[in-house]
């Protein structure tokens, strides 16, 4: 069954059954190479053919995702559940479509993802050379996304992505990790990221070990950890997080000062180099680049038409049928080179990567996150020792206000702990509370 035939069948099944509908079919392929010190652990290849349906009967709303053999039947059965729902406080009519098809396809990636033939990537990245030294992942993806809505949208777009990361080890306690992401087969970006990871591990291995005493420090964040923390900020600016009680911006409004004036964060669905680029959102509304925080001021929450109606705002073209979502994230650069960032840090701690960010209180923003990989103790602008596994245990509002400077080079980051493609520089904090386990 072709995608067009699936769409026709599903739309036909929905007509007369519901008052409003939107149907998305994602059709494509994805391949991933996972490697570690013992070699390539697995190459995975996925066929995507997912059918999503939004249905409204009066003010009752339902969502369905199926990849069943008989999608028409599955959708019909599922829509039955919507009839038994209640009037939703989030309901708003589907908007008139305003989006446009905007594709970003690298033919080489499309072919590799579709065939599962990714041997050339193993060779291009010389993964055999990393045996015994590194672990990581490389992914290629091609998808075509179709959207039809009862409000008149009939849109599609295609995209490819090339994303990965590497973690290098030098002995037991020196390691470095870096990632890259792109819509094209950007081998240079991949090699640059792999080189960064290798260099961090080597740099850490050369330096003496020193235990860090808990306390407040000046802290330099690499784009990897900065990307993770900024993703939390972007999530807090999601109107869905505000409504569901997970946002430390819950009592803020556009115009409020929430960060240092050095910080500007933009949601950029029109950045065609990053894999979440698109010309329309899941409601058919045109996407647009928008500033979330501008020079420290909260500029806009992320909205679909539903959260916008509830919060008396306009859709920002970030649907999500139920809740909004970010696409590509960008943090505006500063003016310091990597060397100048270290000089600006003077005496402090340079954290290169992290994971496991968890909130004690989502509304007040108290949280902690654990470093992994190299952590450099810096004196007089020079790394003098390497340590590891320190924790930032602080509050997000305080961290945001303590942003002192940013690097001028932005890095395209996406990995396990930074889910959205993020173009981001180094970030310098004037103070953050660090702890270690005993």
């Amino acid at each position: 069954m072709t995608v067009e035939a699936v769409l026709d069948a599903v739309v036909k099944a929905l007509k007369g059954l519901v008052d409003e509908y939107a149907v998305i079919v994602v059709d494509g392929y994805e391949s991933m190479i996972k490697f570690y010190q013992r070699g390539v652990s697995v190459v995975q290849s996925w066929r995507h053919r997912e059918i999503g349906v939004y249905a409204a009967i009066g003010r009752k709303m339902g969502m369905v995702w199926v990849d069943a053999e008989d999608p028409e039947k599955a959708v019909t059965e599922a829509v039955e559940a919507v009839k038994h729902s209640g009037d939703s406080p989030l309901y708003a009519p589907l908007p008139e479509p305003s989006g446009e098809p905007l594709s970003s396809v690298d033919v080489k990636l499309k072919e590799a993802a579709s065939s599962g033939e990714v041997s050339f990537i193993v060779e291009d990245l010389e993964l055999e050379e990393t045996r015994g030294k590194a672990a990581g992942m490389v992914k290629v993806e091609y998808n075509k996304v179709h959207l039809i809505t009862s409000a008149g949208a009939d849109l599609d777009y295609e995209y490819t992505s090339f994303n990965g990361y590497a973690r290098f080890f030098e002995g037991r306690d020196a390691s470095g990790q870096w990632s890259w992401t792109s819509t094209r087969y950007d081998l240079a970006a991949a090699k640059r990221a792999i080189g960064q990871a290798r260099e961090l591990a080597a740099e850490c291995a050369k330096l003496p070990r020193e235990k860090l005493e808990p306390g407040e420090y000046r802290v330099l964040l690499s784009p990897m950890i900065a990307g993770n923390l900024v993703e939390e900020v972007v999530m807090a600016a999601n109107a869905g997080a505000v409504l569901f009680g997970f946002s430390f911006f819950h009592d803020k409004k556009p115009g409020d000062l929430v960060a240092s004036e050095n910080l500007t964060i933009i949601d950029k669905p029109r950045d065609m180099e990053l894999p979440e680029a698109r010309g329309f959102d899941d409601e058919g509304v045109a996407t647009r680049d928008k500033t979330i925080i501008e020079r420290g001021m909260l500029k806009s929450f992320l909205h679909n038409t539903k959260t916008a109606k509830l919060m008396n705002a306009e859709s920002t073209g970030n649907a999500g049928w139920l809740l909004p979502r970010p696409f590509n994230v960008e943090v505006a650069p500063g003016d310091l080179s990597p060397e100048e960032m270290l000089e600006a840090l003077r005496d402090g701690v340079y954290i290169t990567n992290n994971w496991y960010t968890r909130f004690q209180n989502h509304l007040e923003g108290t949280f902690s996150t654990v470093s992994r990989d190299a952590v450099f103790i810096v004196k007089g602008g020079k790394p003098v020792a390497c340590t590891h596994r320190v924790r930032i245990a602080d509050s997000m509002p305080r961290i945001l206000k303590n942003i002192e400077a940013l690097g001028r080079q932005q890095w395209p980051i996406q990995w396990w702990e930074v889910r959205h493609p993020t173009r981001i520089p180094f970030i310098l904090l004037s103070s953050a509370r660090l702890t270690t386990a005993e």
Partner: protein
Amino acid sequence: MRWDPDFLSMLVEKMASAGASYAEARLHSIRGLDVVVMNGMVVSVGRESVEGVALRAVVGGGLGFASSPLSAGREGAEEAAGRAIASARAASLSPDTISMAPARLGRARVEASERIPIDSVSVEDKISRLLEAYKSLEAPEGLKLQNVVIHYSEAVERKIIVTSDGALIETYTPRVAVFYNITAKGGGRTANRWFQLGGTGGLELLDEFKFEETMKDDVESLAVNLLKASPPPRGVMDVVLSPELSGIIAHEAAGHPSEADRVLGREAAQAGMSFRSWMKEGEIGSEYATVIDDPTIPGSYGFYLYDDEGVPARARKLYDKGRLAELLHNRETAAVYGVESNAAARARDYKSEPIVRMANTYIAPGDYSFEELLEDVKEGVYIKKYMEWNIDDVRWGQRYVGLEAYIIKNGRLAEPVRDVAIELTTKTLFSSIDAAAKDLKFYAGTCGKGEPAQGIPVWMGGPHIRLRRVKVG
């Protein structure tokens, strides 16, 4: 299920004829219903059917995985067999020299017990129960409930697994879960409590969860935190932890580091490694440090009797009276270690490769009562519920922060304190336990691992435990 094991056998045969030394086919279907209720109103109803075929093949020591949804039909599944072989060949360019350890493989059908079938109750009745739970919540004086979101989730999972060396497993596993987030304001501050309940079975679980009561209790906890609690104490003192805390500790500080794939480094760039990569054996704690992972507990959220490679499940002792014991293995890691798989291979859905996972992990109970644990604590702290937790990527340094906690003075609970933090190493933590209560209790969680990340249902459990002289604050 439209497809029978013969179709899967044909796919296995197809991969074997193309040169696979091992081949495996899994038909994996998850059909679920989700209802989200916010402040007493239904936000949305969702249905999901994640259904497809997952294939694995080993060629030239390289492992390939491919999947295809049922919506791509039989042709899609056959095409996936070709992609599994192509993937394995690409892997063999830098091979991990993978083999599957011989195992006593099952040929069985397992249906988890379901007293009140999920489909026997209407969606309206399920919604009514959530709305009633919201209506029954009352905020104590001085506390305002800002937002209450309740998420009901049910899923029926069906699998058929066929391997080239003889496994044939069919399973039927219904699960029910309730998640909620309560936001409250009081005393000039705001706080939230997020919680999850889950189990394997039918709608009888909703009665067993008593989620209406846990929600009320959590409102009380928020009131204690916001209206009554003082800043936390600091210093070295005795700490008593509730089963909620001992459960997360069992999972994070004993279960994860005992996953053999993590020990070997297969997850090094994602979920991290393990201190057991270099600490192969020896002491990890006191005689009370016994941690078990058992998939066979009836009704548990992590229940299974055969894993996703067809190996019969059993309980695994990870720490045994303070000493490092078994690792969790699938057939791939078992081959590296020259041991038998202990059936830890689990895959979230048809899009996921089976990897080493926990099921239901718990600290073994002791013989004290809770009161006896408190009795000879002169000065300490009792942590009853937590919100923040995390652990480093080798599972050594960890931190837990209390949502509801109390000072212990002369053997009795005294005034409440908020945001009490303990941050300690796995060895310090387990070595500090000098007593465990009888009151083993389990909590549901969604465990994350793998690339792409595979969230799978688990239970985490333990009794009240007492830690002597650890750093607080």
